[in-house]
């Protein structure tokens, strides 16, 4: 793919717009979705059905003062919320939205994505550390131990996908799954991969919830224990950026799940593929995120690590083994 300055600018604007829109409106969707699940109506006042609510929230957050508590490291404190946004937006550069919509096709895009995902945890660590608040400190240590633990099964399941496709390039992985849902990694009939891949998908999905710090694994936020965790001391747009970063991480996680397991932009029946299929799939996944969040109680940090070390890691390792055997046998 040829890279010109116009191409780069176009994608820069496009990705920023996509990211901004998602960050703003996923908050709205979350509130509406939660409200419907709880038989309420959610935001209704600003605009038709409350559609301008994110705008109002944004104006409110931006017009407030960013309070920097006394005695904290001001630079790190201010940098942390920005750092929460950057990896998520950067990740979007390598995500193939369709066969020809991708900012930058890279050979090792899977690796890059996981490197950036680990960086998102870094923002929480810095924010919690720099706040000079005990709740925030506990929260950031929780976030680190959680993310580190969940990288392992996540990478194990990704390796199964990489084994099947034989590539670390997201574009290739998606192209490999074109032609109907029976070719998607999760249901892949070829070589009998569907036997193990749905388990891989489940493990991967659970890990993405944990990686993005979403309920029921929102140990870092845990509002009934740690007040607001690493965000306790943040107000105004500092808080806003953390929230937006959280939603962007969800979008990236959903994109990644779609590419790795759900055939990317492929139509389920193998008819007309296109970017709309990609969007439909990621929003169904995002809805599931919201749905899960508003159904379950929160786990507890040690139960969470137990789940990881006792269930997810053994299962993902066995899964990897079986997948490798299947590839070898057939």
């Amino acid at each position, binding site marked *: 793919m040829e890279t010109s300055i116009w191409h780069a600018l176009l994608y820069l604007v496009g990705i920023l717009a996509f990211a901004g829109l998602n960050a703003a409106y996923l908050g709205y969707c979350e509130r509406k979705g*939660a409200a419907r*699940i*709880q*038989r*309420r109506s959610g935001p209704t006042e600003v605009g038709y059905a409350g559609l301008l609510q994110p705008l109002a929230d944004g104006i409110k957050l931006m017009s407030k003062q960013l309070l920097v508590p006394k005695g904290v490291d001001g630079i790190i404190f201010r940098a942390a919320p920005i750092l929460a946004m950057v990896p998520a937006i950067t990740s979007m550069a390598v995500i193939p939205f369709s066969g020809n919509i991708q900012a930058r096709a890279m050979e090792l895009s899977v690796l890059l994505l996981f490197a950036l995902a680990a960086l998102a945890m870094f923002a929480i660590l810095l924010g919690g550390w720099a706040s000079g608040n*005990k*709740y925030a400190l*506990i929260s950031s240590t*929780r976030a680190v131990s959680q993310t580190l633990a969940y990288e392992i099964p996540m990478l194990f399941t990704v390796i199964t996908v990489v084994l099947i496709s034989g590539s670390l390039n997201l574009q290739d992985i998606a192209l490999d799954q074109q032609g109907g849902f029976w070719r998607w990694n999760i249901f892949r009939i070829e070589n009998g991969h569907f036997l193990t891949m749905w388990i891989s998908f489940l493990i991967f999905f659970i890990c993405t919830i944990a990686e993005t710090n979403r*309920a*029921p694994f*929102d140990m870092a936020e*845990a*509002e*009934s*224990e740690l*007040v607001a965790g690493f965000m306790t001391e943040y107000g105004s747009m500092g808080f806003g950026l953390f929230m937006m970063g959280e939603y962007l991480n969800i979008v990236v996680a959903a994109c990644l799940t779609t590419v790795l397991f759900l055939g990317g932009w492929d139509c389920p029946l193998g008819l007309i593929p296109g970017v709309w299929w990609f969007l439909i799939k990621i929003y169904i996944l995002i809805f599931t995120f919201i749905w899960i969040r*508003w*159904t*379950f*109680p*929160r*786990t*507890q*940090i*040690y*139960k969470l690590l137990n789940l990881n070390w006792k269930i997810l890691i053994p299962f993902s390792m066995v899964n990897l083994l079986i997948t490798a055997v299947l590839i070898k046998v057939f």
Partner: protein
Amino acid sequence: MTVPISPRHDETFVLNLGPQHPATHGVLRVKLTMDGEYIVKAEPVLGYIHRMHEKMAEAGTFAQFMPNTARMDYLHALAFNHGWALVVEKAAGIEVPPRAEYIRVITVELNRIHSHLLWWAANLLDLGAFTPLLYAFDDREQVIDLLERVTGSRLTYSYMRFGGVLNDIDEDFIAGTRAFLVRLRERMPVFYHDLVTSNIIFIKRVKDIGIITPEMCRRYGVTGPVARGSGINYDVRKDEPYSVYPHFDFDVPVFHECDSMARYMVRVQEMEQSMRIIEQALDALPDGPIMAKVPKMLKPEAGYYYSAVETARGLLGHRLVCNGDKNPYKLKLRSPTFSNLSLFGEVTQGMLLADALAFLGSLDLVIPEIDR
């Protein structure tokens, strides 16, 4: 699950939980000495909403204290009303007409369901689940509407009077209550048991958390659902019957696991027993007056009086000392959660912060009642 730890005191830090904290449901402060996420020492600090109700009781007449009683335990206000009415009736020797006593029991039990529903909701909120809260509030709203219809207010009822109750109940209320019981029985298995009780995350959070042994209950004077979750079969309604409770056939749920799950199960099953009591009371509701003939100004004989009632949180005792005057000479309120909370420090030693808060939720605290 408590993990034995040997804290290094140079590495502990103090964490102030409250007085404003989402998990304390009011203004309780707990001073925690922490070693990482483990609690080394927990000291509850009380008194942030202390209003000296006992002095107010001494300052006014017996009847003038009635509105105060509802403001201590705002979730089971009618039981506090009932307790105060009973002790004064005992002191003054007032006979309450049976219809009034039945109405008292019906409203108190409805209020108990309301209190347990709200506890259920708040406990789930402590565990991080928000949706069950609103499902429970949906049901709770029905109870409040029913009680508002008969008492005239929604939370702090001041409904009882010495010798009876303020208003009579009508056919609409009876029909509404029966409809509510049907509705709650329908929703119970789905919204309470399927969604929460059998949920694996919930079970893992509450099972074997916050073990209170029966011996500990006795030493600390723990009563109510907390004691019954520790295998102590003690319910004032059964063991020291007051009002018309002996007329009804109901069970006292007792669980022997001593953990948060046991306390949860006790409360959920108590709601069912309360529904049984209400049904029987509605079926057997006698006719007659709702107020006894009571002198305008009560002047009970000098003496010591004690009366206990079972609120949603445990034994509420009124120790009343009269000197023959129109004011109580001394009133001591023995509130259940004051004693129930006193074991918090001992139980939470070596617990994780998250578990300690789940345990705090399972104690069902109402702070104004602790602080009085």
